[in-house]
């Protein structure tokens, strides 16, 4: 899932200082799971903003809506009839949701309410870690299902660098060396011979190096 983290309330208050009709817009998908932008977080943020406004003696209207997704037009259409009531939207979706909401409603200012961080997994409640950078050319089949693109600080493809010590990365002793994890996994799978195979030069044009990307699937297009 896409992992996001809450933005400091002071930052959001600053965005909204000139607005009086505000919609706090949550998303029921990834940001709900990582407890940054679901219905519950929408309610907490809206209450906080209301309390702040009341304390400042400012009359503002703040409504709350949480959509199934903000990255699909069909769900964003659910606010089409009410969007004109607001002069600002605080979207608690990931950066995709913020942008897609703004694309559908050009005349309304849409502010981000979270910091979108990475694609990752829930290790435990309150702890999410990165697993994928969406490089567009997955090599997990040859690396024991451990990704050196997202988990190796140097994105190395043919074994660890000299900074790998006792299975830890030189950037931080708490970070596992991705290549140590890969070797350990290949050993467990009895596939250590895979480690001997050189990984060819990666085509980074499918990563960010090629600019904004798109996936076209003619088989499912209508």
């Amino acid at each position, binding site marked *: 899932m896409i992992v996001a983290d809450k933005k400091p309330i002071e930052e959001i208050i600053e965005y909204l200082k000139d607005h009086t009709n505000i919609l706090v817009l949550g998303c029921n998908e990834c940001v709900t799971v990582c407890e940054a932008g679901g219905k519950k977080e929408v309610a907490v943020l809206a209450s906080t903003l209301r309390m702040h406004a009341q304390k400042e*003696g400012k*009359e503002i209207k703040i409504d709350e809506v949480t959509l199934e997704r903000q990255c699909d037009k069909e769900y964003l259409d659910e606010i089409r009839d009410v969007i004109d009531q607001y002069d600002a939207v605080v979207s608690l979706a990931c950066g995709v949701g913020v942008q897609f909401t703004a694309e559908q409603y050009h005349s309304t200012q849409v502010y981000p309410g979270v910091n979108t961080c990475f694609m990752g997994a829930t290790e435990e409640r309150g702890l999410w870690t990165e697993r994928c950078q969406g490089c567009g050319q997955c090599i997990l089949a040859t690396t024991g299902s451990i990704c050196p693109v997202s988990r190796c600080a140097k994105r190395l493809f043919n074994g660890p660098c000299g900074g790998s010590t006792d299975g830890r990365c030189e950037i931080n002793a708490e970070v596992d060396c991705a290549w140590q994890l890969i070797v350990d996994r290949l050993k467990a799978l009895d596939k250590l011979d895979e480690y001997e195979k050189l990984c060819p030069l990666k085509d980074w044009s499918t990563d960010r190096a090629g600019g904004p990307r798109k996936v076209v699937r003619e088989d499912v297009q209508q």
Partner: protein
Amino acid sequence: MGCLEGDCHFNNGNLMARRRVEQAQKILDSIDIGGERVKMYNLSSSEGPRFAQYAAEFTEKINALGPNPIKLAKNKAAVDPATRDMAETN
């Protein structure tokens, strides 16, 4: 008020409540209302006198802190015609 930690009928209900109270304190601090206006106490159901002691202690603390800033702002708007007119216009 919650049960003593490690002695909750709902196992970890009081621990979850503690985290929520801490979160509420942070939110109130972040908008300058004051996190000290919320506090969690732990005691067992047989500690009546202690309950009374905590209630008295917190009442005293809240009284010392004075009215919450939201109430002050509302009162100010009610008595200040300029502010009240502005609020009505909005």
